[in-house]
Each structure stands twice: as structure tokens, then as C-alpha cells.
């Protein structure tokens, strides 16, 4: 079967010339998903059933991708969390490259066994359903792109997340990220994000913000770096610096008192791994 062409016009078209989509989900979950997000068909051979032992080698590689991308931040995902927290309840959508086309640098980064044949995952997006069928929790976005700067992978994270959310048929996405995380660049491409928490004691790192994004096609296309897409970035009322924990806690107090805020654009770098994030207060 010839895959339908994607309807996205990407700033980095090389991504869809070299990478193919994959999905990890139980057969009963697959039935709920869009297997042609934005016209990009997921080949049946690249749909992996986590309940089946033949998926083992591919799931191992996803574990390697997670360690390569989240391990340095101290938040690699235990295998049982992968299984319970993603594969059983929701799904893992991603983009990968046939093993024959994988560079030595990527093989080393992703610890691809010499004997492995098949798709090698370069990026993945994990999401879980909530009690509201339209709302999903984005659990993990991992991309090897920043770790393989010579492989024309710019924009891979945003594209993967956009395709994943489209595949899962979400209308709203919740997520948690740290104020100092570069991932806010990616998430803010979906347009203004409602800030549900600004200081989160329930998280390993309380300087975590919880956001809610609207995931309509316009937002997802912009997230994917579609040249024909754009989203509004309203003017901020103030900025929150990534290491200003007192301000984050003050903001949390205001949220708990009933005030509402939006994250309205990409962070600005302050150097030394610090950044500031634009915030707008809603009436």
C-alpha cells in the first residue's frame, strides 16, 4: 500500500522524507485512533501491540530513546511505568527511521543492537486518556533531534507531538513541564496555554507548571511547523523567570484564589540555562 501524502507543508520537509510514523497501542485502543493523522498513514507493520512479545525489541529501543533524552534530567521512565502508564491506557506515537538508514551516531545514541532490523524510533509522544474523552494528558515527549544536530531533525519534537495528538483524537491536552524546560518552546507553539498550576508539590520538581492546550487543527499545524499555520501570541502582562520560585508560588496562590492566567508565547533566554516565560492574566 502506498502511504497517503501528508497534508502538512513543513518548514523542514526532510522530516517526512526520511522518517515514518509508528504507534504502540493495544488492538482495542488502536480502533479509537486516527491512523492517518494529517494524511500521514501509519503502516500496519509499524503498529506495535505491547501485549505481544514480538514488540519487545522495539519497546527496548523506546526505553533507550527515553534514557537518552530524559535520563540526563533524572527522569527516565521505568519500564513498568511505560507499560501501565502509557501502553495499556493510551498510546505512544512516534517517528522513526528504517534500521538500514540509521547513522552510526544515532545507533550509538539509541543503543541499537547490531542484529536489530526494523524501524528505529527517533521521537515519541506518550499520552493518556482522562475521564473526559476529549481531554488527554501528555505524559512524555522525547526527541533525539537535539542530540543528533547533523541529521536534519529540526522541528522533530513539535511534529511528533502534533501528529500524536491528532492520532489520539484529542481536543484538549493537559501537560506538566518545568519552568526551566526548553520544552516550553514546543508547547507554546499551540497558542496560549491555560496555566492550571504554577507550583506543583505533587511533582518530583515542584517548580512544575501544569498547562491546558486547545488542540484544534490550527494549533497542531503550527506545532508541527506547518508553513501555512500560525497562532496568536497575545501581549503578556508580566514574565516569570524560571528560577524565581517565590514568584511561581505567588502565582499558584493566585490561581488557587480563583484568578486565571495564560502562558502566551515562547520563553526568552536569560543565559546560563535560565529563561523567562510570558504570562497574561485573564479577566
Amino acid at each position, binding site marked *: 500500500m502506498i502511504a497517503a501524502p501528508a497534508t502538512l507543508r513543513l518548514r523542514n520537509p526532510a522530516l517526512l522524507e526520511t522518517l515514518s510514523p509508528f504507534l504502540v497501542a493495544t488492538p*482495542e*485502543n488502536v480502533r*479509537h485512533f486516527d491512523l492517518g493523522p494529517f494524511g500521514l498513514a501509519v503502516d500496519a507493520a509499524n503498529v506495535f501491540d*505491547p*501485549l*505481544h*512479545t514480538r*514488540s*519487545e525489541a522495539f*519497546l*527496548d529501543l523506546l526505553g533507550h530513546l527515553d534514557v537518552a533524552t530524559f535520563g540526563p534530567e533524572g*527522569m527516565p*521512565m*521505568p*519500564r*513498568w*511505568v*511505560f*507499560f*501501565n*502508564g502509557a501502553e*495499556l*491506557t*493510551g498510546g505512544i506515537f512516534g517517528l522513526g527511521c528504517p534500521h538500514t538508514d540509521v547513522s552510526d551516531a544515532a545507533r550509538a545514541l539509541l543503543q541499537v543492537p547490531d542484529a536489530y532490523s526494523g524501524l528505529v524510533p527517533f521521537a515519541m509522544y506518550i499520552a*493518556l*486518556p*482522562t*475521564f*473526559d*474523552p476529549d481531554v*488527554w*494528558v501528555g*505524559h*512524555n515527549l522525547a526527541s533525539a533531534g537535539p542530540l543528533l544536530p547533523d541529521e536534519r531533525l529540526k522541528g522533530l519534537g513539535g511534529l511528533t507531538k502534533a501528529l500524536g495528538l491528532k492520532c489520539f483524537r484529542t481536543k484538549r491536552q*493537559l501537560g*506538566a513541564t518545568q519552568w526551566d524546560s526548553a520544552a516550553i518552546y514546543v508547547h507554546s507553539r499551540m497558542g496560549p496555554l491555560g496555566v*492550571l*498550576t504554577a*507550583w*506543583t*508539590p*505533587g*511533582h*518530583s*520538581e515542584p517548580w*512544575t507548571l*501544569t498547562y491546558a492546550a486547545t488542540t484544534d487543527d490550527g494549533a497542531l499545524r503550527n506545532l508541527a511547523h506547518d508553513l501555512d499555520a500560525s497562532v496568536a501570541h497575545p501581549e503578556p502582562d508580566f514574565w516569570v523567570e524560571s528560577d524565581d520560585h517565590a514568584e511561581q508560588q505567588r502565582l*499558584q*496562590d493566585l490561581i*488557587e484564589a480563583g484568578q486565571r492566567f495564560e502562558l502566551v508565547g515562547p520563553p526568552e533566554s536569560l543565559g546560563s540555562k535560565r529563561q523567562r516565560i510570558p504570562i497574561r492574566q485573564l479577566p
Partner: protein
Amino acid sequence: MLQGYETILRDYRPYVIATTGLLGRLNMSPLGLSVAPEDRFDPLRRSSETLLGLLERLDGLTYGPLGMTMPRWAFYDCAELPGLITGLGRSASSLPPRLREALHVRPGYDGIVPMSMSLAVPMLEEHHWLGYSICSLNEVSPGASPRGMRALTIGFTLDMLDARKITGTTQWCSPKLHVHALFAPLTVLTAWLPAHTEPATCTFRFDAGEERIARALTGGIAESEGELLDVSEVSVLQDLQREIEAGHSVRIVGLPREAGARLDVPFVREGPP
């Protein structure tokens, strides 16, 4: 239905952690156990911090020896945001000092201290939930609370959720297998999972509902005829997994039975239709 659980009902009370949207949809009197307003917590608010710390400690004590302690971020992403955490607890001041110390209860705190915990996450079908984990302090400190805490916790979690179908996982060697088997028959979805932290993991499913809960809490299932297989043998689990992958139906139809080093579980296996 709750005859035999009097000591728990007398000294323990339920708590729940869920976002306000989900809290509004839950049955707050599951099995007739009322969840008091002060024992309902929103993970998006800072007032939940102490309880979440106590839950992290309970999880570490019970799952730590299995190598499956849940990172705090996973609690948040995988349970508190999409689903809920519930369980039974009692006031800190009513606990003996050794338990307050073991559970890292801060001096001066007199809120609820969780002694059992159940995490549930929604699946894609309405009324279908993943039983993410279940534990009780009794697992590592027998007598810390009355017997039956886990079964009752599962039972009222199902009623709180109005769950009709449950999927869950447990390690074959875990004592939790017994409490899940109270809800048998369980359809086995995996018997051997190389991609899991612990490959000897059983993924199971059962139809929930009032009748099933009542049966589980009132003495367990009637023992059904089944073929006894020793699930401590890896080769047995691998054979079962091959059968499942070939389309066979594999069901646990009764309680596990210890016999020396063996752990015999009654199964009914049927070929593909």
C-alpha cells in the same frame, strides 16, 4: 456485604485525590463509606502536598522491595491528572509512634494517614478503568491494620468509579495476585512480558459490578474446577503467553494455592473459537 470488615469501618475512613472535574463525577459514598469533605484532595492545590508525600512513602515501602517505586512525577502524570488515588486511612494521632515514624508523619500533623492506596486511570471505553496499583501497609508490616484492607479498597474503588470493567497488572509472585483473584474469573491478557521491568507479570481483566464486588468481599469466589499450573515456573508462563498470542483464552478461575515452593493457580484454557 461488609460483614467482617467492622474493625476497618470503625477505625478507618476513605480519602480520595482527584481533580475537581473528576471528583464531581465520583460516587462519594462507595459501599456506603462516606468520603468526608476534608478527606477529598485536589492535586492541583498546594493543600494536597502533605498527603501526597505520605502516599509516596507508602508506595516506597510497599513497592520498593519489588524495584517498582513510583517516581513522584509518575504519580502526577499517570494517576493524579488523568485518574485518581484513593484508599483507607486514619488520623495520625491514632497511630502508634512506630507507624508514624515508618510513614514519615510530620510532628504536629493530625490529618489522615493513608494505610492503603489504589490508583485508577481511565481506559478509552466508558466505565473501563486500569487498576494501576494497589497496596496496603500490611504487606510490609503485618498487623499494622486489619486484614482485608486491600480487598475492601479495591471494592470501594470500583464502586466509587462505577467501573464495569477493570484491567490490571500484577506480578505472579506477588501476594497481590491473591487479592485480585478474589474478583475471578480473570481473563489473562499477558502471562510473560519481556518488555516489563518484571517479565513475570500478569495482565488481567475482569467485569466489575456490584455482584462481583459483593462476592469478592464476602469470602471470595466459589472455587471453580481448573487446571492447576505452577506460576513460579518461567516456562509455564512462557507457554501460557504463547497460547494467548495464538488466540487461546486463558482465565484464572480461583485463588492461588501455595504448596511448598510452588504457587499453583487454577486456570481454564480454551482454544481459539
